[in-house]
């Protein structure tokens, strides 16, 4: 559990000035070790650079300063093999059936047809999408479409799964259930998971550790060990320690959220 899977060293990200707008220092400098097999949640005020952090870890954006490594190799502005990303927005391919959506990466990687069939069927079964294999994303609810995107990521058997507010557009009940599915997926795959979320309860429920970010430029002001057992689900929300954990996260975040909104500390 303690083996470092991905590491950020002195990472910062500055968006250069463009078209009459000043440069934006979005992130860092920050350091972070993601431990192999852990579920790491990231919370922070709006606009603090959470998504930028995910982009930098994924290799979708290069850091302006510092280094990012994944499995001891530098991540240099390109998504390394072994990393899967699920975005908040619907990223399903509307022109493909659910089955073809999930098979997309495997086919692109040139896997044998029989292997594609087996792994896609398995992923669909795991995500409860078997009955919708021949449907198009437009025929599914938002939650189901997000499941398709998760299945498309899962089928590639990534060792590090990055999730950028994947349940942000879903209603509260669906989010809780999707959280349970995510925990099940995390346990079954053995992958390391980094979840970006604005929902404190979601981070508290799902994570082994929660990184709390400051207002922009985002830095970690604290990283909290939740102490949950690996076998857990949304029912831990009823435990007294869950309330205490969420309250602690909020006490850390409140001042930063006010700062992000442009208010002074009252």
């Amino acid at each position, binding site marked *: 559990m303690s083996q470092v899977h991905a590491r950020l060293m002195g990472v910062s990200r500055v968006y250069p000035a463009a078209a009459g707008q000043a440069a934006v220092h979005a992130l860092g400098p920050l350091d972070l070790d993601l431990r192999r097999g852990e579920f790491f949640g990231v919370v922070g005020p709006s606009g603090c650079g959470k998504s930028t952090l995910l982009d930098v870890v994924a290799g979708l954006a290069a850091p302006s300063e510092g280094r990012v490594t994944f499995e001891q190799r530098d991540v240099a502005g390109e998504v390394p093999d072994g990393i899967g990303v699920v975005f908040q*927005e619907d990223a399903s391919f509307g022109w493909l059936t659910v089955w073809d959506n999930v098979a997309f990466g495997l086919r692109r990687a040139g896997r044998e047809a029989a292997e594609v069939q087996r792994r896609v069927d398995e992923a669909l079964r795991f995500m409860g999408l078997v009955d919708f294999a021949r449907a198009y994303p437009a025929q599914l609810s938002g939650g189901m479409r997000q499941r398709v995107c998760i299945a498309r990521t899962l089928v590639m058997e990534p060792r590090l799964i990055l999730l950028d507010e994947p349940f942000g557009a879903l209603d509260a009940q669906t989010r809780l259930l999707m959280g349970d599915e995510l925990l099940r997926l995390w346990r079954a795959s053995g992958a390391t998971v980094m979840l970006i979320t604005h929902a404190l309860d979601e981070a508290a429920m799902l994570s082994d550790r929660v990184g709390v970010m400051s207002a922009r430029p985002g830095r970690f002001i604290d990283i909290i060990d939740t102490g949950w057992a690996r076998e857990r689900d949304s029912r831990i929300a009823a435990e007294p320690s869950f309330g205490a954990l969420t309250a602690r996260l909020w006490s850390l975040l409140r001042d930063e959220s006010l700062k992000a909104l442009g208010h002074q500390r009252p």
Partner: protein
Amino acid sequence: MSRAGAWRLGILGGAVALLELLCRLGAIKKITMIPPSEMALALGRLMAGPAMWPHAAKTFGNVAWAFLIAVLAGATIGVVLHALPGLRRALDPWLATWYAVPVFVFYPLFIVLFGMGDAPIIAIAFLFSVAAMTIATLDGLGRIPRVLRKTARVHRLTPIERALRIDLPSAFPYLLTGVKLALAYAFIGVIASEFILSGFGLGHEISFAYNNFDNRTMYGLMLFLLTAVVLINLVVQRIERRELRRRGR
């Protein structure tokens, strides 16, 4: 058949019946228009004979050339302008006012450049069509969600793979709109050019029949063209509808 489809068919049938009645009663003179039933008979006669087909082949051949070149050029220009926003900003006013330009003013220039024959006709029809395809391509590429581009990077697609596997299918419904418009404009360009430019083709044959008061041939050819254009458009529209339905639109 949907209720709207039934209404459409009913309105069309009613209009044809009314026209038939007005022609038969003499409210519309025979020199102006023949009854639709006679147009259909004239069309049957033309289709049974050998005279019309070489003209039809010439017209449809020219339409096909103008359409194909316009679709390829329009899509290419669209892709280039999408990739170069500065150039797009510079050319946007031209694209916006393209259809305000009476393309036929270039007719003498094309005759000088290409001589008499098919080339100036295809050139005029191409100019009619190309802007529609360019604008549709720009529209389609502009509407590809950013998250799909990010997804392409997560899957480590090369630029060509991304274009073929993500950009093209994502923009496909908008491209189809461009294809539909380009086809319609190609027909307009070719037929209109044949009226004034050519000694051959359906446009010329309609003009020739008109000048010789041969209403049967003229209306028979017009009906043939209308039917062909409507049928081709129905095919494209069916593909477009299937794509839009698939995407929940």
